[in-house]
């Protein structure tokens, strides 16, 4: 593994990774909240299992895409067993690179006329 990977070296991102990055992009969330957020954003189409979630989180922490957040919510809303995860700068760069990749793909698809009539 190269010592300092570029965002592009991690592309294409697995779908679960991309969804998790988006879920923690605007605020830090704990595991169960990530599952709920992803389900909500995709209108219930993507439901991450606990196994998939934490296997992804482990890898993403190793790859420095997300990190455990020290900030905690107000004590009355908190559960001390929970850990919160937030996106890192590198994670944001990787998510951006993935968006760019997908946009490129979309452009090619549109140019060849294979996009669906109604999106």
């Amino acid at each position, binding site marked *: 593994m190269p010592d300092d990977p570029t965002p592009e070296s991690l592309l294409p991102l697995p779908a679960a990774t991309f969804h998790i990055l988006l879920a923690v992009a605007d605020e830090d969330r704990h595991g169960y909240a990530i599952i709920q957020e992803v389900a909500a954003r995709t209108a219930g189409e993507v439901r991450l299992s*606990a*196994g*998939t979630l*934490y*296997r992804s989180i*482990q890898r993403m922490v190793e790859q420095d895409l997300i990190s455990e957040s020290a900030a905690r919510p107000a004590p009355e809303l908190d559960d001390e*067993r929970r*850990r919160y995860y937030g996106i890192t700068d590198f994670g944001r760069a990787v998510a951006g690179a993935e968006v760019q990749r997908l946009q490129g793909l979309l452009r090619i698809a549109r140019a060849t006329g294979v996009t669906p009539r109604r999106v």
Partner: protein
Amino acid sequence: MRIYALLLHLLPAALREEYGAEMTATFARHLAGARGAARAWALVAGLADVTATAVRAHADLTWQDLRDTGRTCRRNRGFAAAIVAVSALGVGATTAAFSVADHVLVRPLPFADADRLVKLWQDQSYRGYSRMELSPGNYEDWRRQSRSFASSAAFTSNSVNAMTNAGPLRLNATYATSSLFETLGVSAALGRAFVSADERDVSTKPVVLSDRLWRTTFGGRAEVLGTTLRLNGESHVVVGVMPGGFDFPRRDNDVWLPLSFVPDDLADRSNVYLQAIARLQPGVSLAEARAELNVIAAGLARAFPEANERTGAAVIQLRDEVSRQSRLMLIALVGASACVLLIACANLASLLLARAVQRRRELVVRVSMGARPGRLARQLLTESLGLSALGGAMGVVLALAAVPAAAALVPTSLPIAEAPSADVRMLAVAALATLVTGIGFGLVPAWRIGRGMQRGEFRHGSRVFGSGATERLRAGFVVVEVAAAVVLLVAVGLFLRALWRVQDVNPGFRDEGVLTARTALPMPKYEVTATREQFYARILAEVRAVPGVTSAAYTSFLPMVMRGGIWPVLTASSAAPQDARMASVRYVTPAYFATLRIPLLRGRDVAPSDTQTSQYVAVVSQSFATSHWPDQDPLGQHFSTALQERVVVGVVGDVRVRGLERESEPQVYLPSPQVPDGGIIFYVPKDLVIRTNGAPAALVPAVRAAVNRADPEQPLSDVRTLAEVVRLETASRSAQLTVLLTFAAVAILLACLGIHGLLSYVVAARTQEIGVRMAFGATPARVMALVLSRTATLAGLGVTVGLVVAFAVSQSLQFLLAGVSPTDGATFAAAALLALIVALAASVLPALRAVRVDPLTAIRAE
């Protein structure tokens, strides 16, 4: 939830410890939100999820470790190649040996319900024959009276002359009762096998072909069915072709012909020539069948005391028709391969341990970055398993190449193929050997790493790890390697001495410069003795006229080829004990003794004047003369054998008829014209022996032409030199020795690698110490002695252990050693010496490297 928590243990430790609690909490919340069937579904899905996650996480880790292994190997190709090569040798040797042993000793025979198939023998143990063929009368009575068998069959093998488009051929034939194929549970691949009508209606004369004959001689054409094949001058109709791989009773069988008995056959209970097999009834045990047949045999002994006196019945599983010698040899082979595998494992463990020490820095960095000891151990284990898997794959290729070479160890007494085919069993053995190798050599370094780190030996790049303890471990491995190599060397030495001893046995004749060939004359065409004599006279006259030929003759059977042909002997006042009154009987033409250089000690050879109208005479071997007339002149003595009274006219030297490793009955030679017309056709001379001054093989075209001129339908078969016949006597010993020798060579090579590796490591690790010693005045000779003494100590220890183990093991090989003592001192000493010399030779390079250490550089490096 408890099950969920339990299943979490399937996850890799890092994932579990870091996220296990969160996963449980998430799962619990998920579960809390569901009711009824949805809850049950969520429960199942959660358990399935954690299991699937565990599989994926482990696969991720393994893949990552394998990629790391690939990178490591690319950086250090020599090391990777050594690991792969050593494990390939270990796995290859084990797989080949196990496959051959499994093929012969374990695998079910290729018949349906093969464990219910038994072989039936007459048992005359009281005179040394525990497995004797049956007479037709006894077989029929056993078959009719017994209730233990679902079916049974009798058969006898012979060869027949066939007239084909390709000219006359000699074919191996089995005459079998129609129940043979039903008993074995095998049908024809093409056409049909025999039906009971074939026995009754002798006019049809059906013949069933082997797959091999069908393909080679009849082009594999289906139209062969219904065609006519001339066998021994009679037309037979091809009714079927057996499937490929049907090797009953032997793998060289060409045709099956129906066997039926006429009343005369059934009446003569002393004519024992049938082999019999049977299929046990469901629910009947081997012991029950044996007991029942022995009761029947006892009844027959009372009814026909002359032929059946003290004759019992032996019932043994068809699977067990393997001689004790073959069985022991194969077990020895597996033992030898286990030695090679052990050495390979020790060697690999040693190599990997050294490698782990070299990678100390890398491992320390990973520990400091938070890697767990378990994780590092796992990576090392994956590395060793990955490399051994590669070695295992190469080992299978090696085994596939080696197995045909071991075919000489597959006995012909079993109806099985010459060599095991590559199948799931072979691959399973290879996989197991690979796993043993991978774990065997990977576990020790992995364990050392784990332990080293628990003790904090890794902190700050400590030098403690990888010095003393590792060196001791590796030294232990070297001792094991040397010991295992010594065991193999002793075994090879003992087998070599046994081979020499057998080769030194005087066969009683001179085999060099003699060509042998067979012209088995078919009956009834040649049943009149005078017709045969004309044939012999013509062939012998033509052959003797070939330049270089000094003499030629015919005999009933060549020594060592046909070991039976035994007949009881009656004398007026025989001094020989009852059991010794048997003789190996051969009809010969004049000059047989001169051709084989069997010394004529007294009297004369058989002569053309010995005919059916003259006195019946015999030439006897010296042991025959001394056992029957110890203090008298044997010449002129009378005795009866082969249906006639005969007078002794000559005495010749004894011949090893039963082979170099067995005692033979005394021999009686009778003049060929004195075979009665149409009688005792089994003994009719068929083997031609020709002595020449030149190369025996050069005679073949002339002999073939002579036979063709005498009878164009007569095939010439079994053409080979007498030296080849004698060599065949030791062929299986030679093959066994070659296999063992190969194993021993691999073992000693691996042990050398181990010693060389260890000493190189020691010298490298102690460069500073050596430098300091040299700076303080140690001479190169002293340094060299230091290194070599280390080898001598380890090799000495290994040799001692090896000799003790060899002493214990060799006792069980005694049966295979042809009289060589299993504790033969010279062999043990030679093995020990050889191992020591090789060990010292392997340490020369590291010792020279130690001598060349520059004290200044070494000390500065410190």
